[in-house]
Every structure is written in C-alpha cells, then in structure tokens.
C-alpha cells in the first residue's frame, strides 16, 4: 500500500509555483495533495497526483528537476489523538519520519509575503475562511 509522490525542485522566484500548477492543470492532472518547504533561495514541492509518471514527464519536458519517491498515505481519524496513534506505532519501532503533510485539499493554509494585499485580491474570487471558521473545523 505505497503511494508514488512527485517531488519538484523549485527556485524561489515569484510565479514559479504557478507554472507547475498551470502545466498540470492544462494536462488535466488533478493535484490531490501537496506540500512546500521554504528556504531562502529554493524549495521543494511535493505532490500527490493521480498519474505521477505522466506529471513528471510533463514537468521534465518543461525543464524542471523532479524525483519520484515512495510514501505512505494514512487515513487519520478526525478526532483528538488520531495522529498520535499513527505516530506512536512508528515511534515504538524507531521508524523516523522525514517529513509529513496533510493531503486533504479542502482547506489550504498560505503564508504570504504581502498578506493584506493577498486578502484583498482573493476576496470575492475564492472563499476565505475566518479565524472562527478555522477553529470550528
């Protein structure tokens, strides 16, 4: 029950992330989950997509450096202690976690440079969650 993850090396330039999602979107590849890492000059984009090989080939053709890796996706019960139960199993056997991220794509949290301007831009185009709504999730 292993899943193939697509990893992309990205330079920290504005618009670069959007290029990746554009390429995949135009090819009809739906991003089911992702995470980004932050660094001063570059980062790693990790994607869970239905056809990772096809997505990789598309991105390679556009000059991106990519990698396919095996990961495990877990359905974690949505209740207190749910994540802890999974991690406890791994910790008992001393299996270390390199990284982990959530792949439910309903609600996504962004850290942005110009947060107030971003809010103004997004308001009306997409539904933004209020502080209260997030707390109630």
């Amino acid at each position, binding site marked *: 029950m292993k899943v193939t993850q697509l*990893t992309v*090396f*990205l*330079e920290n330039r504005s618009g670069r992330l959007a290029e990746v999602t554009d390429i995949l979107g135009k090819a009809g590849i739906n991003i089911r989950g992702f995470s980004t*890492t932050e*660094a001063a*000059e*570059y*980062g*790693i984009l990790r994607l869970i997509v239905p056809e990772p090989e096809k997505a990789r080939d598309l991105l390679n053709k556009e*000059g*991106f*450096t*990519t*990698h396919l*890796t095996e990961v495990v996706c877990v359905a974690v019960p949505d209740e207190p202690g749910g994540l802890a139960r999974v991690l406890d199993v791994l910790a008992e056997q001393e299996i270390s976690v*390199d*990284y982990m991220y959530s792949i439910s794509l309903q609600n996504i949290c962004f850290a942005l440079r110009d947060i107030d301007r971003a809010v103004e831009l997004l308001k009306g185009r997409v539904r933004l969650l209020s502080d209260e709504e997030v707390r109630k999730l």
Partner: protein
Amino acid sequence: MSVTTGTGAGAGRLVADKVGGQYWQREAETLSTGELGELQMARLRATLQLAYDNVPFYRRKLDEAGIRPDAVRCHGDVQDLPFTTKGDLRDHYPFGLFALPRTEVVRVHASSGTTGNPTVVGYSRGDLELWGDLIARTLAAGGIGPGDLLQNAYGYGLFTGGLGLHFGGERLGCTVLPISGGNTERQLKLMRDFGATALACTPSYALHLAEAARDHGYAPADLPLRVGFFGAEPWTNEVRQQIEQALGLDALDIYGLSEMGGPGVAFECLCKDGMHVNEDHYLVEIIDPHTLANVPEGEVGELVVTTLTRRAQPLIRYRTRDLCSLSYEPCACGRTFARMSKPVGRTDDMLIIRGVNVFPSQIEEVLMSIPEIEPHYQIVVDRQGYLDVVEVWIEVGEDIFGETMGQLEKFERMVQQRLYSVLNIQVKVRLKEPRTIARSEGKAVRVIDRRRKA
C-alpha cells in the same frame, strides 16, 4: 628640446617624436623592421644560451625539444621553442630559474601568491638599468622630462609598479615624488602644493583621486597635471575619458607584468591607439591559447613574451594569459615598435576576493571533480558594503536533487567545504534550476563581477 642625462651605456636623450611626446632612445625606438629582426634574433640566441648554460629547467626543456640555442635563426624558429608558464615559476620557487649566481642578483620582487607561493623575479644591476630606460621611454612618450614632477602613487615594495616608475622617472631626470598609494587627502595637497605635472597610479586610484579632488573643492586648474601613466589593471577607453575629463590630463596606458620585470613591456604614445611593445627587449607573439599556434596579425589571442636582454631571470615564450592583439601598422608618432591592444581579458581571469587571489579555473576544478555537477556554472562576485562576496551558481539536475531539503543542504555544504579547502575563502553555493544559467554562444561567460562599474 634635447637633453642628455645619465652616463650608463643605455642612457637616453630626449628628442621630440611626431605627436608631442619624446623619444628617450630614438635610435632603438625607430629601428627598421629588418634591423629590429636581426637584433632580436641575436639577442634571442644569447638569451637561450644564457638560459641553457645556467638554468637546468631550460637546459632540459631545450634538450627535449632538440633545439640548440645557436640554431635559432628566424621568427619561424621561435615557434619551436618551449613555453614557460606561471606554474613553472612556482615549481622553481624561489630562485630556481635564476641564470646568474646570487652574487650578481641585486634585487628581488615578488607578486602576491595564488595557491601558496608568490611569483619571484630577480634583477641584475644591468637588468635594473635597462628597466629604468624602458620606464624612461614610457614617461618620455607622454611628453615629460627634467623639470616635471612625477607623483608616483603606485605602491612601493614587493610590487613592481612603485619602484619601477620611481627609478624610470629618476633615469629620465624628472623630479619623483615617492608618495606611494593611499592617503588621498595628502596626495591632493602635495599634488597642488608641489605642482605635480605627471601622475602614475592604477586607473581605479586615478578615478578615486578625481572624485576626492571634486569633493575637497579642488578645481582642475588647481592641479597642473598634464599626463598620467596608468596600469597594473585592465581599463577601458571609457575610463580614460572619465579620468581625462576629471583631472585634465592625457591618460596613457602602460603594460607590464612582474614576471617580465614589471611595467615597461609596452606603453602608449600620445596617439593613445595601442601600446608600443619595447620589441628590442621583449619578443612578443600572439597564440591561440587552445592550439598554441601563432594567430594571424590583428587577431586576438594570448600574449606570449620572451625576454631578450634580462640576465638574472630570462624567460622563454612566457604565457602571460593576457588576451590582446598586435598591430604592425606604422604609428603616427614615428615609433616602429608593434602595438598591442588593451588586454580584452585573460585566459584565466584572476579574481581578487577580499585580498585573496582566486582563479576561476580553481573553482572549475573543484566543481568538475564532483560528478553530480553539470558543466554549466557561473561565478558571481559582488560587493556588500566593503566585503567581496562570491557565489557559485550550479544547476540542480536529477543527480543532485535528492528529494529532501536535508540532502540538498548537505550537498551545498559539501561543495562549499571543498571550495574552501582549495580557495581559503568562503564561497556561497547557490542551487539553480536546470537551464537557468545563461548559455553563451562561443566563449562561456563564467564570471560575473558586479564590483566593476566601468
């Protein structure tokens, strides 16, 4: 005007040239092509014999090449002679290439070291007198002589610029102010108070002096400068215009390298259209740095110089790594010496980073020893405040991209450490996406030096 000075055999006599400057040794400076060629070949044979008899390195090289010093007859034969490189100088550090016993070596200069050992150059008493004459020619061509005050702001010491210009100025008979470099305010005060008519320093320091003069409220008329002799670093005609306007003088380029004894290899006349090579003392060729074959006249290539009269440390076909062209067209000034263009670059562009000499080839060697690194890289030098910073840009291909940040960071650190162990300076490695480093058509632009404004 005609003034005779000095008593040595090489002493000169100032005679006006055709463009407002002067010859110091008119006969030598206006030799016909045939006379010059004969003189060069005779001096070359003597130099080869001296080297063969006294320098084991050259004896071995010439034996290997199967060349007898007295068999070299024409310029075509020169192409069969072995080259000498900076590496050879380092390998024989410090005095291994001297052709005279130490009792006859009266001066030693040394250039800053790159990967350890500095380049050493020795002078006999005769070498120093000759050097003085070559600098005197340089200064005379700019139109100065006895009665002029030469403010010599080249650094005095192991560097050949300071002492070279100093003794050349004295040999010519002008008044030399040995102020050396730095202390800009004092430079300006003495320049004005003493009425300096000539200035010698690096072109970048000339620009700095010009700026400081403006800041301190000196009008160009306060400074009676007429001519400046600027060398030891490459500079453009744009910089020439800036210096000339700011200081109100004729800015002349001079060329030399410590291996050849320092400044005095070539100098501009007031035509400012290429530097006359002192061909009676230096035999020059231009080669293709890859094929090592001579290139046709006028084409740019690497300057190769053979000393014809230096005795303490003769050098045969020394590869200067400076890229320039030669012109044998007659010059309006009347000198018959070939003219070399301003160097357009170096085969191996040395960078000075926080005072440390760094060769891009050293960086390339490190990078190319790491199999994951693609042959596309760039070296970016910038200045943050007063500090030089170097970045090495490399592209992240499949082989480097290991999937986690930890792996990338580990890779960065590994490259940085390897660079540090060779260069002794901190270099920042910057990981770039594939094909983001500009590809050049023809010669790759490996170094971007943002410190240079000109």
